[in-house]
């Protein structure tokens, strides 16, 4: 079973927003992605799970051109990002990235800018939005992630959970059509994980198309439309969370889930 089979059943009429075929990437002799096929329909939440080193993050980073695959093809937001090693020209790649938001494990807020400026930098510099309007929109986004009162704060004064919520607001400010989350809660203290997942659930409810790499199995179960299990650079199994978590067909899925669900 491949991710394509799993997702076409839940597919919307418009066709997939992200379409990945035969994605291959290697660092020298070390193969990281070994032929990935994958579709994401509009408003779908796809959760990618799997052991570390399975290629989850690399796969996600290929989807906005931060990593370049050697083989295969990615179509995303109506553009062919990469086709057999040929990447979009720089200018189009930048335009595409405006439509593909990314949230990093380590937040990567701009430490020299206030929370407000972190959120407004992209719209002002790239969309030419006047400062007043950019700040009004940013305030609405900060309210949405529960940080309206922190607009003037510097990132260094925020907790990890607050930083990650600002990072989400910063990505949303570009009005993306797809959001990529690369282990957004892995760097957080346990008590701060919930506030970030809460924001992500809100986005999912609003119909945001999302690809989420995470170790949060409860989130996968509750919010995911499709759960994709990766191991050894490939997708070993994909399907609705109910199926993956209760009746996985692959032995490797079973042993991975057993390992993560029985920890502690």
């Amino acid at each position, binding site marked *: 079973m491949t991710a394509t089979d799993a997702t076409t059943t839940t597919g919307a009429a418009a066709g997939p927003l992200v379409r990945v075929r035969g994605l291959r990437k290697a660092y020298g002799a070390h193969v990281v992605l070994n032929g990935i096929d994958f579709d994401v329909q509009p408003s779908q939440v796809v959760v990618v799970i799997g052991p570390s080193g399975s290629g989850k993050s690399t796969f996600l980073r290929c989807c*906005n051109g931060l990593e370049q695959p050697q083989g295969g093809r990615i179509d995303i937001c109506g553009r062919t990002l990469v086709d057999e090693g040929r990447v979009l020209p720089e200018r189009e790649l930048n*335009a595409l*990235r*405006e439509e593909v*938001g990314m949230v990093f494990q380590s937040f*990567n807020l701009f*430490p020299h800018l206030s929370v407000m400026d972190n959120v407004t930098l992209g719209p002002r*510099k790239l969309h030419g939005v006047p400062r007043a309007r950019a700040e009004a929109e940013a305030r609405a986004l900060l309210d949405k992630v529960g940080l309206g009162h922190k607009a003037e704060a510097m990132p260094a004064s925020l907790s990890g959970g607050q930083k990650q919520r600002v*990072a989400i607001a910063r990505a949303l400010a*570009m009005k993306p059509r797809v959001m990529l989350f690369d282990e957004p809660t892995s760097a957080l203290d346990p008590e701060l994980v919930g506030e970030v997942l809460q924001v992500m659930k809100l986005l999912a409810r609003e119909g945001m198309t999302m690809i989420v790499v995470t170790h949060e199995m409860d989130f996968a179960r509750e919010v995911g439309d499709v759960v994709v299990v990766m191991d050894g650079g490939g997708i070993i199994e994909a399907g609705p969370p109910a199926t993956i978590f209760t009746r996985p067909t692959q032995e490797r899925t079973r042993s991975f889930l057993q390992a993560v669900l029985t920890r502690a």
Partner: protein
Amino acid sequence: MELDFSPVWAGIPQLLQGALVTVEITAAALLLGCVLGLLVGIGRLNPKNRIVYGLCTADVAVIRGTPLLVQLFILFFGLPQFGILLPAFVCGVLGLGIYSGAYVSEIVRGAIQSIDRGQMEAARSIGMSSGMAMRTVILPQAVVRMIPPLGNEFIALIKNSALVSLLTIHDVMHEGQKIISVSYRSLEVYLAIAVVYFVLTGLTTLALRRIELRLRAGGMVQ
């Protein structure tokens, strides 16, 4: 043997005139050095761009690997053989600026590379070009980290500027030597010259310290 500072007191206007030339030539060279250093430092960030990287690396290797005095003499005494006759002041600024630029470029490169890679990725992920990301995200953070080593470099530049007295430039060193040539009071005049350089480097240190504190207070540092 006793010290006689009267030639120094009498020569104060002359020394101050020379100090002004030292400040002018150092400031001009500093500006040139920073511009060159920024360009060369950025040029050395990406080895995949082989021509730019190669040129910048060669520049740093040659300029750092040969004496400043030799470089100054090549500009002033060597180039005229090809009919290139630059005024002494221009030779001094060029020589000092190019020399300083090589060192500044390493400071720039080091500071930029010390900024977490995630900063560039985050900037690119919202759609910025690498140039815009460099200007708005990386450099503002890197500049703060450049200030302490740049302070060292500026001080070295002020002191190295004494060499331009050998290009007939009337800097404080040159003016002092003129006073010695008529008074024969070497120790007293050289001590006075040392004081002038010490004051100049001290003021530079204080100014940079203030700038750094202001940037830190502005939240520019993690």
